[in-house]
């Protein structure tokens, strides 16, 4: 009973997600700053690390405005739902050698499906906002999600086929340097699809500030805005954790196994993501569609063939 409470509210539950959000948000800012020739957060706390905490708590306590004419139920329930759905995948990820909070034979399936639901919730927030820009943003979220989830699922399927299991714990246990090399193309596809799913440059089309004024976020403020941002950072966590568990051996490391290694691997993914963010302009919706369906999806199908071939050749 107590263990379940700790799982749900401390680790890997709510508190962990909050700490992760504050930490990752600060890291994004602090790492981005020198790339921009800036200093970044500086004054509050060591290296400005309290800054994000203050920003989030400020958002949290501000007035949440619900515009006239919207379906206020849909408008307010969606941010909450987005956070809850975003938190769930953490339960099936094997964070430490002692296994995940919720053991399941189908934990990979649970992970990708829960990640896949998130964009539909964002679409509904845009749909429920009664704003032309939010609506356009919502449509864009949906378009992008459909385009990238195919490649994302196919890339996540590669380790499952290779190790013959849908259980993340089994995949992590069986992983080795050899499997890492064989799954490297799948990892690359997963990473590109991750940029699309998380709406990161060059695929930050749904919430493009200069085009659709942050898309589905336009009408949100205060607590609701905080919840939507929180759900995005929690989604970052789930997707990074998926990358760590599927391809990089999760908690496995040199000299010792443990959460530290998992954390470092997730940070490494974040570093690459931010560096791309600092140097790549946004592409258009049409270019994104063409890229996804003409290149990414066919390549991820070919990659599946390669994984099956490699399994038959080296591991039968």
């Amino acid at each position, binding site marked *: 009973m107590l263990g379940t409470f700790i799982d749900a509210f401390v680790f890997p539950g709510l508190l962990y997600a909050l700490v992760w959000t504050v930490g990752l948000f600060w890291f994004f800012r602090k790492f981005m700053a020198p790339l921009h020739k800036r200093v970044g957060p500086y004054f509050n706390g060591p290296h400005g690390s309290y800054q994000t905490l203050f920003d989030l708590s400020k958002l949290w306590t501000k007035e949440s405005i619900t515009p006239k004419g919207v379906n206020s139920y849909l408008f307010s329930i969606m941010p909450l739902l987005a956070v809850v759905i975003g938190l769930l995948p953490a339960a099936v990820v094997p964070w430490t050698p002692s296994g995940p909070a919720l053991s399941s034979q189908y934990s990979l399936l649970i992970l990708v499906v829960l990640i896949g639901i998130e964009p539909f919730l964002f679409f509904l927030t845009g749909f429920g906002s009664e704003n032309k820009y939010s609506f*356009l943003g919502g449509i864009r979220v949906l378009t992008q999600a459909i385009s990238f989830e195919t490649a994302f699922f196919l890339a996540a399927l590669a380790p499952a086929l290779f190790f013959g299991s849908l259980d993340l714990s089994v995949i992590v246990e069986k992983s080795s340097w050899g499997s890492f090399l064989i799954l490297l193309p799948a990892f690359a596809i997963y990473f590109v699809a991750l940029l699309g799913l998380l709406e990161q440059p060059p695929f930050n089309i749904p919430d493009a500030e*200069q085009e659709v004024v942050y898309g589905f976020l336009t009408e949100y403020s205060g607590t609701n805005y905080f919840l939507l941002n929180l759900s995005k950072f929690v989604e970052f966590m789930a997707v990074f954790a998926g990358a760590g568990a599927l391809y990089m051996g999760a908690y496995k490391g040199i000299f010792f196994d443990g959460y530290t290694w998992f954390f470092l691997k997730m940070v490494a993914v974040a570093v690459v993501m931010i560096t791309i963010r600092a*140097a790549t*302009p946004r592409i*258009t919706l049409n270019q994104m569609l063409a890229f996804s369906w003409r290149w990414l999806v066919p390549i991820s199908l070919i990659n599946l063939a390669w994984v099956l071939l490699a399994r038959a050749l080296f591991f039968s």
Partner: protein
Amino acid sequence: MSKSMEGVAKALESFETEYVENYKPTWFKAKLKSPDEIVAVAEAMKAEGLRTLSTVSPTDWPEEGIMEMNYFFEDLETKRNCWVKCEIPRDPERCEIDSITPVVPSAEWHEREAYSMFGVRFRNHPDLRYLILSPDYYGKFPFRADFDMAAHEKEQLEHVKEIVRDFKAEQEANDAELDPEGSEMVLNWGPTHPASGPIRLKVRCDGEDILGVDPEIGYVWRALENLVTRKDFVGAIVAVERLCFMDNINSMTGYCMAVEEIAGVEITPFAKWMRTLLGEIARISSHMMGTGNFYNTMGLHTIMLWNLDVREYFLDVLESYSGARIATAAIEPGGVRYPLDMKLMDELQRALDKFDATIGDIETVFAKNPTMRHRARKIGKISAQEAIDWGLSGPVLRASGVRSDVRLDEPYAAYDQVEMDYVTVPGGTAADRFQTIFEELKQSVKIIKQAKKRIEEGVASGEFDPSKDHMVKVPKKLPAGEAVSRVEWARGEVLMHLVTKEKAKSPYRLKMRAPSFNHTMVLDRLLRGKTLSDIPLVFGSMYVCQGDLDR
């Protein structure tokens, strides 16, 4: 050059004129006897090659009861220009003239502006609505000499109910026009949109596809052209420099040249070189923002911050010279405002060193960025012929491959002694415009190096006295006169048309023709049929500043 200035004179021969005179080496000036011939003149000019209308500038003369119309025709390829004047009655009922927009498309918005500000009605204009003024404006035309602010406010208050009624009617018309079951809608792109600046683009779209764009301007209208008439000739520079803060030096240079022409004053070579030097610094400061802003429209802010880092050093130079980083007020009729402390040259050298050390990185990461090029080289395409017909200028014009640059076509300041060439890029797409602005940054640095060397040599040899030569005296009262001056501003051609009365202490009329006006005018043609994602990029590539758009 096959086409000569004589051709322009010949084209004017068949019309009844009061005079045709050589105004400047590249300018003819003529006055028509009858305003009815203006369309025929425009056709003759077009046939001769003067296809662009720089601007229309009415001058209001209430004592004589006339409105004097000034048309400035330009040939951007062979560098010939013609200033055509004619007179129409100023009585609001009869203040009419034929529109030349059907012949010369670049006149479209200029005629709308003349209509809004002076009440000149243009017959046969395709779209004669108020520009800059709100569509529900009631009252007298604001730039007329007999405009009375108190009476105007009273009149507005009397019409409050009508204004509200019109506003509601417009909203209802919008709703009725759009099919409630369809996916068409009107997006208000601005004036508070993150990428718009203070301008409102009424974008009619079907989902992501654009059906039409109608720019509505006037959100930062400061009536600068009217403001200068309330200041003396020196004080007017602070209004002129506010054309746009990014390149304020060159606009002041243009105004001061017009004042000096009427006063008959020749400035010293030292002051000319200083104007060149400061002008290029201001151009760099503007282009740095321009290239940064281009990328901002695609959601990438890194280059802007890198550019600002370099730009600071150039602003330091302006600050050390004039005391201000942005609104410098450093150019004055008669020369430049302050004597030169030669320590400034060390500071300038630091800025140049910083530029040379950074520009390579910016070029590798951003100017050659494949994602940007892949996206930007497909949109916003303007052919050379279109660019000329629409009256585009500056980097936007040169990106379409047209060799036109006022610094070379009609050299002012010390540009006749500077080694430089046209920076042109063929292609005319958004990517080419970025490329042109980027290349011009390097060109400006080369010019600064030449100017710096020349000033240092001149001071060393005793030819220039930096503590005295910066100014020659310009009388406080000017004779009656009229002058036109052109400068190559960072964004393109700025034309100043200055009119003074006898013993005037302040300008009677100053028309500032600024490039963003035409660049915004063509947005609809560039964006129709494209998608919403292209709006910020095309708009950003046109290098528009709302400051000189509204004035």
